[in-house]
């Protein structure tokens, strides 16, 4: 450890504000980009699954009406 106590670690020798806001903003942006990427994948799958269900329904209706 380069610090004597946890309070020391947080204080970063009077530069705590700069160090921690730099890391805070970085974490926020990185996490947001990862979450958006994963969410995008889920969205594409959902849209395609919905389309597939709709097409299936249409083909069933066609079968019943005998066309």
């Amino acid at each position, binding site marked *: *450890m380069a610090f004597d106590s946890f309070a020391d*670690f947080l204080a*970063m*020798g009077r*530069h705590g504000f700069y*160090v921690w806001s*730099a890391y805070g903003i970085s974490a926020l942006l990185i996490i947001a980009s*990862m979450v958006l990427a994963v969410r995008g994948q889920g969205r594409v*799958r959902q849209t*395609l699954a919905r389309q597939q269900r709709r097409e299936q329904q249409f083909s069933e209706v066609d079968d019943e009406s005998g066309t």
Partner: protein
Amino acid sequence: MVWKTLKRWYHQLGSPRYFYTFSSTVLPWLTPIALLTLVTGLVWGLAFAPADYQQGNSYRIIFIHVPASSGALMGYMALGVAGLVAVVWRMKMAEVMLKAIAPFGAALAAISLVTGALWGKPTWGTYWQWDARMTSMLILLFMYVGVIALQNVIRDPRQAARAAGLLAMVGVINVVIVKYSVEWVQTLHQGSTLKMFGESTIDPAMKYPLLISMLGLWLLYAANVLIRARSEVMWRERRSKWVGKLVREGNR
């Protein structure tokens, strides 16, 4: 021999379906390894590396600032290559990559600027200076945003890729300017202390955590690109049989 292997990779990874299967096997490993590496490097740098003899503890911003900046620059180089391949050979996967590489690169460029400003205040006494390094880095962020915006504005994906690809290629010049801005002109920003060739001038106790965080963040970038590319491939190939089957079976 090497040429043949490269050519085979080009054709295999150029196939959307092959890419999808390939990334399915890589991602479950890549993402956790990337996160673990990044966290290791950052904890080491923040808590265990020694303080700088001049800057004290504010220098610890380096462990995110340098990995983010280098990641943003490398990402843009990759974007330029994807742009070239998309514009000249109209390869589908290059168009997909053009879309997948940009978002995380833009985030890294923003991180580079913000952490740089927060490091500059206690060290140089100012958050910002319109000098060569900082201005060219700001332009890099704008280039990323421009590539993303072009793809969102143009409806036809193939035409969008062509326009974005051209912008990506042109922007590579700016990457060269960023890289050499600290050597060619007087700037507030220091030169690089990490050297690919020759001896680094950074202390090993700081170098190792820095290299580890760098590796971690680059791997995470790769994971991010793969995830985004997979969604894009799936969407573009939505009318193909293999995607239909994938959706029906609910497989990953």
